[in-house]
């Protein structure tokens, strides 16, 4: 990648992040329907996380060497098991109490 392309990646990432931040903040400020707002919050956060990983941290599914991608994917797996497991078990306990 040339310097211009790399600079453009940061600027695209910045532009997308601003939009994906503005949408949830606006919805919350305007007190829209709670159920809808929560869904939009979740979707915007996931999209913005992907934007950051792609444009700021320069991760991609292509061209990653050896352990790099595995390191990130393994961490994602650990997070999924630990967070998912915690929420599952504690939500279950709450219902039984």
């Amino acid at each position: 990648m040339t310097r211009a392309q790399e600079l453009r990646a940061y600027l695209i990432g910045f532009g997308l992040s601003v939009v994906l931040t503005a949408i949830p903040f606006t919805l919350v400020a305007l007190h829209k329907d709670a159920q809808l707002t929560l869904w939009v919050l979740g979707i915007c956060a996931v999209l913005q996380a992907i934007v950051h990983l792609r444009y700021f941290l320069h991760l991609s599914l292509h061209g990653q060497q050896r352990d790099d991608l595995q390191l990130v994917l393994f961490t994602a797996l650990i997070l999924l098991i630990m967070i998912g497991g915690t929420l599952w078990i504690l939500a279950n306990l709450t219902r039984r109490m």
Partner: protein
Amino acid sequence: MTTTKSNYPGLNLGAAHGDDHEAAETAIFGFWIFLMSDIVTFGMFFAVYVTSALNTAGGPGPKDLFSLTSVAWQTGFLLVSSVTSGLAVLNLKHEHSQSQSPRKWLVFWLLVSVLLGIGFLQQEVRDFIDIAHKGGVPSRSAWLSAFWSLVGMHGLHVSVGSLWCLVIVMGVLAQGVIQRWKHAIMSWAVFWHFLDLVWIGIFTIVFLRGLV
């Protein structure tokens, strides 16, 4: 899709940097492993937060304590800072393959990033004081303990990151853009981007979800 060989995750210094690029492989990859463990730690704090989000024990709740405007400012500071730290790395990559190049732009972008980081911290500390004044101290409820742990730990990371950046600026000014500081800038920038990534989770799950 053809891609140039990358030695480690993220933006690489590139072959023009010679030895500095080769040596970065272990340094930066190792730092990524640390960051992954750090993100697991944050993940568990998030899990604890979500499981205790409703346990306010009759004390103040999110709507009594949070300010949307202040969180928007903090988000802005951190996002712009993340971009300017990226600009510092681009400057390092393209202007400093020979260490004689002038350092002023590199130092400029690093200082801009750290100033924005301090702007974030100043706003966050004001919020913390405000929340404590309204009775939202950590010992009040399970929810507040979880809130202070999660947001406080992120704030601690930003403080350490700001300090680290200042050390790098002093190192670069004293010794020039040598290998040691190149690796430090690359690692610090990744660290800084990650803090912004964690902040997305915080402003969504803690602040916005709390104010809905």
